[in-house]
């Protein structure tokens, strides 16, 4: 089955990046039949509409797959998850980073975020899992951060450790999330907003990509 058509369709509707990955190895028992992950990213200039836009793209992808006779399950963007629904329980069984790396759209940077060569970490992600036998893209299996350590030096909480991500050692802790969280919750208490994001803005990939566009 040709994934190209779906990608073109979603990009025409406003998706910045669309990739298809073989995510078989990352699936828990409940959703093991949905072995293709469609990663959809929107270049966010941090507007309010970004999340709504992504959800609309997911619905379109679901409709396309259904019309072709396949099942799908949308994993919505992290900030659009209603807590009170039963299906929400399944969302955390799968994370967007897996779909993004499996479809070759980026690697996990030293800052723990997906880094895409053109857009850096300034993307918002959503995933649609499906059982449609779409041709998968070549996955990203190791970091391309190299010697750059800007995010390590700029992190105000010291959470970014500077380790390189690699699929060969998936259990290595890249970011000490407890430190990051405590800094952000401290700031939220003080100013009402977390006000961080240095690791996104200092990343050369984020800057070049953003500026060139």
């Amino acid at each position, binding site marked *: 089955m040709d994934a190209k058509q779906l990608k073109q369709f979603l990009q025409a509707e406003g998706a910045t990046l669309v990739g298809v990955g073989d995510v078989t190895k990352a699936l828990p028992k*409940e959703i093991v*039949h949905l072995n293709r992950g469609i990663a959809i990213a929107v270049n966010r200039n941090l507007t309010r509409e970004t999340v709504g836009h992504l959800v609309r793209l997911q619905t379109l992808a679901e409709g396309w797959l259904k019309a072709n006779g396949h*099942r799908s399950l949308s994993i919505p963007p992290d900030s659009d998850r209603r807590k009170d629904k*039963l*299906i929400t*329980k*399944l969302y955390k069984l799968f994370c967007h980073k897996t779909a993004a790396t499996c479809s070759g759209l980026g690697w996990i940077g030293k800052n723990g975020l997906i880094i895409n060569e053109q857009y850096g970490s300034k993307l918002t992600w959503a995933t649609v899992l499906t059982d449609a036998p779409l041709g998968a893209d070549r996955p990203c299996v190791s970091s391309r951060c190299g010697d750059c350590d800007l995010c390590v030096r700029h992190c105000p909480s010291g959470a970014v450790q500077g380790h390189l991500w690699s699929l060969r050692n998936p259990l290595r802790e890249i970011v000490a999330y407890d430190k990051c969280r405590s800094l952000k919750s401290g700031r939220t208490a003080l100013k009402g907003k977390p006000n961080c994001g240095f690791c996104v803005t200092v990343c050369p990939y984020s800057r070049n990509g953003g500026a060139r566009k």
Partner: protein
Amino acid sequence: MADETRKKEILDKLRNGVIQYDEDACREGAQEAVAEGLDANEAIFDGLVSGMEEVGRLFEAQEYFVPEILMCADALYAGLEILKPHCKQMDLGVKGSVVIGTVEGDVHDIGKNLVKMMFDVAGFTVYDLGRDVPLDKFVDEQLKTDSELVCLSAMMTTSMVGMPKVIEKIKEKNPNCMIMIGGAPTSKELADKWGADGYAEDASNALKEAIKMVAFLKKLRDEKAQKK
């Protein structure tokens, strides 16, 4: 009261809304049912529950999987939320309250939530303690609410071992209370050994049992209507 064709239309909308996991359709159907004076119990049982029965069939035929089931359950809840306040107390011999939760050390609660749905539909008052619940909380909550039924769930063998302690404590204080256990490591033998009154193995079995039970309620209701 709406005429028969209109009534059938609304019931079909509710039924298909559940089957096609379309929350908006369920909500719309439920609102129409309320606006046009349809009996709320009828809308729940002949609409929503009848849809869920079909979902159970599709699940057994492996047309549907766990994600679809959960989305269908969400759609059912969307309709139920609107219809529930308009329900008259059903006189089916089953009423009362139930304490439900996943035992200490366990955070897996998909099965528990499906079982909870069954009680919600059947008109029970549900005291949902959530997941990773300290053992004594079950005992306290049972005493506080005087519930007839306590449901314990666990997916891991390590957390399941807390179950017999809870059962013992509750039975000691309140021998008439029924206790059901559920989750992958449980079995009928264990349930018997520990003195529990019922068991279900996993989310899908819990769902099958749930649907069976609600279908049974529906049958009771139909028979009662025929007698009238």
